[in-house]
């Protein structure tokens, strides 16, 4: 069981991701807004972040870049569904370049999300180097 922050500005996706993760026994802190989510992450203890890419600012890439600086040990799973001006692969390659633990394409099957999250969680508490 892990403590997971989920960020997506679409309430349907947010509900779906929350339900999938809770069905696996994880505790979910769900946010529809990147700023509130960053404040929550920086004020709390979490094991993993799941974030959408294309949102109002800060978007998923900005969140990812910020967390790579402030919380380099925190795995981030990126959800991408394409964007009006960019092909799907654009978000995925950005996320890869900025250190996402995994990238999955919407709409995904629940098994895809579970595998991405749980693979990124192990080891759950990486020992300090």
């Amino acid at each position: 069981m892990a403590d997971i922050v989920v960020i997506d500005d679409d309430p349907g996706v947010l509900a779906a991701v929350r339900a999938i993760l809770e069905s696996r026994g994880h505790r979910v802190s769900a946010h529809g807004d990147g700023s509130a989510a960053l404040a929550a992450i920086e004020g709390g203890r979490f094991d993993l972040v799941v974030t959408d890419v294309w949102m109002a600012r800060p978007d998923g890439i900005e969140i990812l870049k910020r967390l790579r600086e402030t919380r380099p040990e925190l795995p981030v799973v990126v959800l991408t569904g394409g964007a009006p001006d960019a092909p799907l692969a654009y978000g995925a390659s950005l996320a890869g370049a900025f250190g996402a633990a995994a990238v999955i394409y919407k709409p995904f099957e629940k098994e895809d999300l579970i595998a991405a999250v749980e693979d990124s969680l192990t080891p759950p508490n990486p020992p300090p180097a």
Partner: protein
Amino acid sequence: MDPIRAVPVDLGAAFPAAVLSDKLLAAVVDSCPISVAVADPFAPDMPLLYVNDAFVATTGYAREAALGRNCRFLQGPETDPAAVAALRAAIAERRPITVDLLNYRRDGTAFWNQLAVAPVHDAAGRLTAFLALQRDVTEDRRRAAAAQRRSAMEATGRLAAGLAHEIHNLVQPVITLTDLALERGDLDPALREHLGIVRDSGRRARELMRDVLSFARPEPAAVPGAVVAPALRRAVAMARATLGGRRLECDIPELPDRIRAEAAAIERVALNLIGNARDATAADGTIAIGLQAMDGPDGRRLLLAVADDGVGMDAATRARAFEPFFSTRLRRGGTGLGLAIVRELVESWGGSIAVQSAPGSGTRMELSLPVLPASKGEAIG
């Protein structure tokens, strides 16, 4: 190149005679790289009085075969009667005209002929002849049509990318929340069935968006190329499980030839063609897949054919088979994008696709793909 423009010719003007001798002028016209023909407006049925070397080269008709006949011998079954009527009207009114006509060479091959016809007048302003300049614009028209289709596809792609973001978000909870609900053991059987339908509808919407998005995804600029035979074998292996009792005849030799494509795209094209063949055939039908290499005047090409003994297509269906969103199976899971995507991919590899089909006699799709020059030390795979 600019189109040929039809302009009235005035032989009364001083300069040709003054600058060029008749003999030199005749030699210039004879060897002019544009096809030139002159018709007699006074003889019955306006026979050709003169054709130059380019006319002979373009049409394949020798001078003696062409002279004395009305130039309609270049027309054929697919020549547009409206274009011919416009040409006739202009000639009757003795005014210049430029039209694109589908004409036929002596060997029966069709070509697009940009024909510029102009009346020729003498110094007194009397009509003396009709001059016809002709240019083979087949390749120009093919390029223009391809460019037009590409720009339509790009517009579709931009729209699709915009829609995809919204639809993916909407479809996400439809698929996964119903999937979670279906895990519950206490569901009423009717409710379980309905939730299953909702989830499957969500999955179909996802497949549709994936197909639409493949228009939005440009081919990478530098594709290293892939060997066709193994990609085709992989597609056949994947497709085999979906064919039920249908017989699959494969003739895929281990050819080392590569084409300018990604292996996944070759698989996709093959899967699509096999899937279409499957859907068109009866449960005990036969599907044949063949690959062969041919060395021709345009270099080496691979011919990939997928044939079935299924229902076949009538002329109307055949004409629209490659059109996006045209499908005879929209209610049975088709998105209407399969063959449109196949054609886009094949043409992006520099290849072409031809279809032979008639109701009751099955369908044969044949891809002709230019082969990349062999590179050293390359493994097949």
